[in-house]
């Protein structure tokens, strides 16, 4: 009896749900309020490497962040190191709502030449916090 209880606790501990922070939760709720019914992680994964020509340069999210989320990236122009996208490596990732929105705004414009839609942001955020 005791043994099975310990085992139960153990399994419960290691099958915790995907990573979420108050910031990501509240943002996802906001996107939902803006009309996002369902998030599509597969689309986010595909979009991550989708190249768009902006000012004569082929750009995608991966141009600066790479495709291995456990590794740091590099700014395509200044070469400045960008910390890994995975929250397992960079502990303060996705912990600040304002910061997430700021970078969505800037980076969508830099990589795609336009702001991302609420749907796209919801997809990306869900995809990224699972990494």
């Amino acid at each position, binding site marked *: 009896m005791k043994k099975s209880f310990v085992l139960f606790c153990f399994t419960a501990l290691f099958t915790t749900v995907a990573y979420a922070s108050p910031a990501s939760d509240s943002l996802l709720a906001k996107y939902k309020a803006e009309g996002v019914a369902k998030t599509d992680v597969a689309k986010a994964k595909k979009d991550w490497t989708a190249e768009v020509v902006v000012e004569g340069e082929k750009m995608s999210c991966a141009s600066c962040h790479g495709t291995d989320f456990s590794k740091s990236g590099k700014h395509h122009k200044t070469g*400045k190191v960008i910390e890994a996208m995975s929250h397992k490596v960079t502990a303060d990732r996705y912990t600040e709502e304002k910061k997430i929105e700021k970078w969505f*705004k800037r980076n969508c414009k830099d990589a795609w030449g336009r702001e991302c839609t609420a749907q796209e942001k919801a997809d990306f955020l869900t995809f990224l916090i699972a990494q």
Partner: protein
Amino acid sequence: MQMKSKIAALLIGLLLGSGSVVAEENLLEAMFTPLRQKEVNPVNNKLYKDECGSCHFAYQPGLLPPQSWEKLLNEKALADHFGENAELEKADLATIYDFVMANAADKSYYKRARKIANATEGIEAPLRITEVRYIKRKHHEIPDSMIKGNKDVKSLSYCDACHTQADKGVFDEDTVKIPNFPDWDD
């Protein structure tokens, strides 16, 4: 007597720096700025460090005169910041603007900042630190192979590629280490 007065006039002339073709700061000015310090005033503003420093070296405000910062730090200019989107929230932009203006080259008692202020006085304000006459002159003898041709430097814009204490506002020659050119000595 006449000779003496000529010499005196010459000395006064020199003292006032009328012939300051090379030096950006004249002796008189150097003597009468008692708060004068070496180098460039370091960045002591967290928001500036975080916002500007997340994409590039957080250039000290003392590296440009206020007329230059004025051109760079407004909503429109930041939307196309040397080809990148660097938009800031209104409140953040205001904080950063105030910090930069209060510490721009002309407000500083740091030696290099003063030289930059003087080098940019009365001319069209440069957008880039690398366009400042004083900065150009300080780097002109370094061959292209060590900067542009150097894969670990690439451009004069990356101060901290060679200036090992750039983040502290120290740009002294003794702190310079050019990657891939260990034997270089000025």
